[in-house]
């Protein structure tokens, strides 16, 4: 189904941008995802909550085609991610931002080159001036325009996270996938990153899936939370709904 047809079918406020249906993924005998279902609507922030090793990172890597899944379907912007040809996949990926847990900034490049990299790949005809303007705009959005000529190794953990966030939004994506965006950061920096995620999401109308253990971050950004247990969606609801849940698997997250 084409992206256009998909949009027309669903239309309106609740237009799904990502839809996972009965997705299964195993590594040998370890069944990470078991008939997992998830729908992300346009403009929505969905948090996937789960214990370490429960397959949350595998889930978002399946969504961008970094990991192939065993069965089920994943539709991103109306297209089946696993049946795409490489060029089609690149085109869809250019509409998705991905914030890695480790930031994944290119060590051998300056901050400017890190931000220019996706632009040079996807906006080949863009002039040098325009590229520079977008780089500076992205850095200004995250409050770090002065780091433009620095190397990633010269930056603190929080600054690296902000730069990675700037790189994720530089192509003006429709969706961002966040893999534990505040892990390893102090609470103040964590709050700043959560604030930036909200701010950028609203500014550019971005839909996002957030993998996180940090309940402060979850509270700040989540429109809806999905609790992943044994590879399945165990519970789904808003922060307040799940906070009042009586189930042990859920209460433990909120008691931290």
């Amino acid at each position, binding site marked *: 189904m084409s992206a256009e047809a998909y949009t027309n079918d669903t239309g309106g406020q609740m237009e799904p941008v990502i839809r996972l249906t009965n997705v299964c993924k195993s590594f040998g005998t370890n069944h990470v995802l078991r008939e997992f279902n998830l729908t992300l609507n346009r403009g929505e922030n969905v948090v996937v909550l789960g214990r370490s090793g429960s397959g949350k990172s595998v889930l978002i890597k399946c969504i*961008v085609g970094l990991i192939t899944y065993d069965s089920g379907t994943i539709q991103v912007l109306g297209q089946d991610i696993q049946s795409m040809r490489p060029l089609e996949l690149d085109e869809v990926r250019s509409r998705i931002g991905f914030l890695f847990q480790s930031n*994944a900034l290119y060590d051998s490049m300056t901050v400017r080159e890190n931000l220019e990299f996706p632009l040079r790949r996807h906006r080949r005809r863009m002039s040098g001036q325009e590229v520079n303007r977008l780089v500076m705009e992205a850095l200004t959005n995250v409050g770090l325009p002065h780091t433009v000529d620095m190397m990633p190794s010269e930056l603190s953990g929080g600054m690296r996270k902000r730069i990675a966030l700037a790189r994720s939004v530089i192509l003006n994506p429709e969706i961002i996938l966040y893999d534990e965006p505040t892990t390893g950061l102090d609470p103040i920096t964590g709050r700043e990153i959560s604030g930036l995620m909200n701010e950028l999401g609203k500014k550019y109308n971005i839909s996002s899936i957030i993998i996180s253990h940090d309940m402060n971050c979850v509270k700040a950004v989540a429109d809806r939370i999905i609790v992943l247990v044994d590879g399945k969606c165990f519970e789904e609801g808003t922060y307040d709904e799940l906070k009042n849940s009586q189930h042990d698997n859920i209460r433990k997250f909120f008691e931290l």
Partner: protein
Amino acid sequence: MKIKATRQFLIETGDITRFSGRFFVELFLKGGEYAETLRQCFFLGYKSIGLVVTTGFIIGLVITIQSRPTLVTFGAEAWLPGMIAVSLVREIVPVVTALICAGKIGSGIGAELGSMKVTEQIDAMDVSGTNPFKYLVVTRVVAATLMVPLLVVFADVVALYGGYLGVNLRGDVSWNLYWAQVLDSLAFGDIIPSLAKTFFFGFAIGLISCYKGYTTRHGTEGVGRSANASVVISSILVFILDLLAVQLTDLLQLT
């Protein structure tokens, strides 16, 4: 235990074969990374010149000094320039230069790609719509294949210059006579096969190092292991390829 090790060896050999197959497929796909290839040529080639030239000079000097007494014993001292020229150009310089490149280039590529792998930089590249295999692997293998022969040519010239100094430490051979003897003793069959094999040395070093780096697992410990294995396997392959090249040259009667 032996069965397990043999099985692992065969699996790895198969993986390397598939990896090299992918290299050739990606090499001829449209959309070459020319700028990155040039950048890698600069890093792998230009930045190795100092090391290669220094070792080349020392090898030339040492081989000459050590060969002299034997030739003096047989009264064949006049053959010294010709003899060292053949041994340096045909065998010693290509192999030693390739081993140095295996150490410098191999460990560098293995560690760099390994580190990129474990810190998800390769995944980030993939997600940003760049084919990481083409951008990281193809460029480095091509650069290594082209730069190692070039470095060997530099090292050959400098080693022969070292030989000239070695000859004159205890003798008196003019610059013109030395080079006349050197060039007289070197034939087409000496230079071309020795240069041809260095392309294979470069390819092997680039490919193995990229394979080890690109398939790194188990965090930072894995990065160290990849860098180490890149050097060890590349060095062994240099010797194996050299052996095959000598046999082939002999078979084709290019000697």
